[in-house]
């Protein structure tokens, strides 16, 4: 077993990219056990790419990812799979299997990865579904659920084997505030009652303030700020300030309106 003291998720000098163009450069971060950490940043800043790198889906160009103390990308395929079984991932597009019922979706990892009797497996799935507020939806098809219900079912599936870390990509994006708050509550229960470490990618200021213990802000492929949410809100950094105060970024140069550029282009 891993020592409980060290960070649950850590990366050092991590660079991730597609082909030779890096999306993330030289990322250092550490996530302590039993905390909720939010990854913030504008669209396209590489939050989801970082999450993919942390969950073994996107091999890095350089640097290392340590998950529960082990170097994720130094392990062989079996070792990596074994390590990833101790983590859970809830995807942005819930990624539920459309051909299975909700209960079967949630029970699937237990069926595949353990030898528990069927009755216990079904009970586990039922308890997890009740925990995310989906009691009574066991035999529905995922296609008949609403967006929020699908996200919660995905959360139940990601957490069914009591992972030590759960990664969530935009768990409450596009949901109404009440449903989003419900998802926040569920994540908080996972942390408080089960001691789960949670890494979420999110845009929702409400939910960051409500649940995140720490926040890490990305911009331009780098970490531009990290700390408690309160610290970040007080930050002097322009981008961080803009993010927390919902200020739109100004266009590149002050004196170059589109019309100016057009007219300049015409007269050499």
């Amino acid at each position: 077993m891993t020592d409980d003291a060290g960070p649950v998720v850590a990366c050092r000098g991590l660079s991730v990219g597609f082909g030779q163009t890096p999306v993330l450069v030289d990322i250092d971060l550490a996530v302590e056990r039993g905390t909720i950490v939010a990854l913030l940043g504008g669209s396209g800043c590489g939050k989801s790419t970082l999450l993919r790198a942390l969950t073994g889906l996107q091999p890095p160009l350089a640097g290392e990812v340590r998950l529960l103390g082990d170097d994720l990308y130094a392990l062989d395929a079996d070792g990596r799979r074994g390590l990833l079984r101790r983590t859970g991932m809830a995807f942005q597009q819930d990624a539920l299997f459309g051909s299975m019922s909700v209960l079967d979706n949630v029970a699937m990892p237990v069926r595949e990865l353990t030898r528990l009797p069927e009755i216990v497996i079904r009970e586990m799935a039922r308890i997890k579904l009740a925990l995310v507020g989906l009691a009574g939806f066991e035999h529905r098809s995922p296609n008949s659920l609403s967006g929020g219900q699908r996200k919660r079912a995905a959360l139940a599936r990601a957490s069914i084997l009591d992972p030590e870390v759960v990664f969530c990509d935009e768990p409450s994006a596009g949901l109404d505030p009440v449903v989003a708050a419900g998802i926040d509550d569920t994540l908080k229960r996972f942390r408080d009652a089960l001691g789960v470490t949670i890494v979420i990618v999110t845009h929702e200021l409400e939910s960051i303030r409500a649940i995140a213990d720490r926040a890490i802000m990305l911009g331009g492929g780098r970490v531009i700020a990290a700390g408690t949410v309160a610290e970040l809100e007080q930050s002097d950094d322009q981008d961080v300030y803009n993010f927390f105060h919902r200020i739109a970024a100004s266009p590149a140069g002050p004196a170059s309106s589109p019309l100016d550029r057009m007219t300049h282009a015409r007269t050499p």
Partner: protein
Amino acid sequence: MPAAFTELDPRTRTATVRLQGDIVVRTSQQLYGQLRGVARRRGIRKVIVDFAEAGRFDSSGLAVMALGARLMARGGKAFDVAHLSETHRAALDLLPQTEAAAPAGADDDPGGWVQRVGAGVLDYYAAAGEFRALVIDVAREAALLAARRKRLPAGELLHQASVMGVDAIGIVGLLGVLLGTTLGFQALVLLERFGAGVFAADMIGLSMVREFGPMMTAIILTGRTGAAIAAELGTMRVRSELDALAAMGISPTRFLLLPRLLALTWVQPALSLMAMFLGIAGGMVVTAVAMHLPPDVFWARIIERVTIGDFVHGITKSVIFAWIIGLTGCHFGMRTTGDAASVGQATTRTVVVGVFFIILVDAAAATLGALL
């Protein structure tokens, strides 16, 4: 180490299940066995689960506790816990308080066989109705296109034609030649026996032009193009791209189906024509080598026997086959529902139904040709 051991106290009719160590995936099955054993005992009135020496507790342990409580309730036994630590209490608090009643009408229960047969029949009628609507819509859009009131997306027809046609030239050509050689050998076996080897050319020419050219091309294109159309449209349905088109007020029929159908309409006869000639060439080689039938004699007989009418017969059929392939692919692709399995089902159905109707039409055409 066992996950739990049970102490029975006959005086108070109480069973105490003492948990030992972690109750996790590895060990919870044992605990379940113990609880079931206790539940079956008649003399016991009360069951206490003692957490004094319990370690970590995970979801499977929690599930076993919930199942245990239910077992005892069913057996009329009292169920209680003792020596809970703070973490254990927090974990047990996660259990749902009451059994939630399922929302009414929620289950997607497939039902008994009567229901399934009924659903199948209804689905068949719905599908027939949708197919009719599809054909009407295609005809309407094609008419608007012919009247130059609407136009196809730029470059799409050429793109589709090259994907469906140019990319299939290799396989259709190769199989055409092989089919021609097979026919040549058949002719050899059958006709040489009667000293009628020279008629091999008639047989190969007529069969390739009237039957095998169009038929073989159609079967290849069903698997190649029909399945691709169904899979592409099905995936677009799953990713709501078809809904996006509808929301933009753009007819999917004109934007997606018509370019595919039109491309097939001229690609299919062209490929069939190529298959006919390559098949004849294959037959010519075989008869020249194996029967010493000079190619110029062979060719002269082809010209004498195979008429323009035979070509018209073959090419007309190939156009009908093109529409069968295109329409089945479009129909099953558009009928896809939201999940991945239904895309697979759509491609399967396209191939099976497509080949079925191609052979049906071919048989009907042969029968009609013989009667007239």
